[in-house]
């Protein structure tokens, strides 16, 4: 899966849309590039926008979307004449509500723990950032070797427990990551 680096840093642009049949979509709406849906950058063109109507082009097809009704975070959208119901959450509210990965053992798995004693040389992320699986989070120097520690899931950086220059013990918790993989 070559999904690395698809989600850019800004977690406030990541949303979860849940359809009434339970199907979930993870949508990243970047500032100036095409949307990322379920980890894939989509070649969708925005053709027209007027009031509550959007028209998209994708895969050589046209999609007419019309907002039928909206209540809080729930929306009914008519796509090419057929209605679909969704509820939308930002990734933060989604996590807050414990709607993904509430399994605590799983949460622990995604946390980054020092594999060996050493010194934190560099930290690439801040709390609240999005991180992709395989993306480097920090550099840990041990025995004069620099080790890049990478994320083992796509997720949001919840807490960074260490600072640059700090020495850490083996198995010490370095970074807490909330997985957004579903």
């Amino acid at each position, binding site marked *: 899966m070559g999904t690395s680096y698809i989600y850019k840093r800004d977690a*406030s*642009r990541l*949303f979860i*849309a849940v*359809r009434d049949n339970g*199907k979930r*979509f993870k*949508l990243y*709406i*970047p*500032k*100036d*590039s*095409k*949307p990322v*849906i379920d980890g894939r950058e989509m070649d*969708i063109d*925005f053709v027209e*926008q007027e*009031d*509550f*109507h*959007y028209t*998209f082009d*994708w*895969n050589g*097809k*046209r*999609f*007419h*979307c*019309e*907002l039928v009704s*909206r209540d809080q*975070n729930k*929306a009914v*959208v*008519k*796509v*090419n*004449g*057929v*209605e*679909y119901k*969704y509820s*939308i959450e*930002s990734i933060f509210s989604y996590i807050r509500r414990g709607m993904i990965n509430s399994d605590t053992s799983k949460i622990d798995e995604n946390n980054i723990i020092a594999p060996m004693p050493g010194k934190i040389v560099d930290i690439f992320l801040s709390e609240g950032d999005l991180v992709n699986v395989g993306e480097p989070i920090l550099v840990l120097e041990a025995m004069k070797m620099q080790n890049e520690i990478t994320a083992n899931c796509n997720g949001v950086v919840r807490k960074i427990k260490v600072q640059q220059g700090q020495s850490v013990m083996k198995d010490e918790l370095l970074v807490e990551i909330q997985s957004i993989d579903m």
Partner: protein
Amino acid sequence: MKKRLLIANRSEIAIRITRAAHKLDMLAVVFQSDREPDALYLKYADEIIPACDAGNEKAIFLDPERIVNLALEHNIDLIHPGYGFLSENPDFAQLCVNNGINFIGPSPQLIRDMGLKTVAKSMAIQAGLPLVPGSDGPVKDAETAKTFADKIGYPIILKASAGGGGRGMRIVGKPENIERNFKSASDEALAAFGNGDMFIEKYLENPKHLEFQILGDKQGNVIHLGERECSLQRKHQKIIEESPSASVTPEMRKEMGEMAVRFAKSIGYYSAGTIEFIMDEDGSYFFMEMNTRIQVEHPVTEMVTGVDLVDWQIRIALGEELTLKQEDIQIKGWAIECRVNTEDTQNRFSPQTGFIDKIHFPQQDYIRIETGVQNSSVVTPYFDSMIAKIIVHGNDRPDVIQKTLAALYEFTLTGLKTTVPFCRVVLQHPDFVDASYTTRWIDQVYTPEMLENEEDEMIGALAATILYASEYLQLSSDLPTYKNDRLNVWVLNKRLNY
């Protein structure tokens, strides 16, 4: 002086008839009902009669006395009833005739005869048309019913002679069930109608609906214009029609067409008319009824034959002789009509009323659009939910299916839901593609989930999210990093009105 033709109808058919009137250099006169005073058809007419029917229980189109009185006041020469409303009301036709107004249709007596199913069927028998096998009169007991059923074959349907609304009606699939069902149906009929008499008839499980278009003149010439298949229907409301039918071979077309002509001639029929057949899975067919009006689906016949049926209807009413001969009628290519009804096909086809925000029709030389609405039109609860028809012509059946599908994808309407997505589903379904669909298709095969697909579902999620995100990101814009950074430029930098 130009002849004055009054159209006792509304919507797309009023516009269709207006066109025919203009072709014959007549003035088209229409009613303006208070129930839809801004209707589109008013724009095409030469003269508008205000109906002032707001306070009346019936809309003008259902009020024979008022129509005729207003027609007399406005020096009307001919009345075209269109379809529905009073188009097959013999009393209305008679009233027109009595007042010296030319009613465009057959004689009032024939409208009356064809409206009574028993009369129509006995006339059909006389002309040698096949009828669904059944008992001529009531059968007296279960034993007789069983003997009869063994002869015509199962399944059979038992019908109370006084019945209605499904009471006293049983479908029996096996001989061992007939006695029990006969008794319960007969008892039910006796309790409900005070009459336990039962008829027995062969039951067609998966029938097709076929109909032959005919044209006859007052001189006794009759021709047929091939068949239409209208099997795709819901509660007897047709949604998609095609001409010709894939279930009719050239030999059958000749045989059934000749039968239709023979029947029309035998009863002295003139004007446009339709003879309906029901066809069983084994290809056997039976006369059902005759429609004495122009039908909603007449354009598919016009597309494949090139004959203007409404034009001929009017000319025949004026006494003109039908110059078309049977050998002039050639079926060219294939045509499909999709009815655009404002109905929610995701929710049991419930009617939708309200404003049409924007409507866009496909435009091609092989596409014919008949519409009664435009942008900002209102769909009222007072009339039918059909707002338009999309009729497409192709070289053959696969070609027309593909062209129709493309046309339906190009059609857009915002504000209300329509039957168009449903029609798209049908046209792509194997049962339609191989033409095996029957009148039970919607009940037996169709589910609203068939309207959904993963691409639309995903794009819908995107649209919903963009709407939500635009608001969410505006709220977040208090943070310094979000300054002037509200929404994606991909979203054309247009702010939403939240």
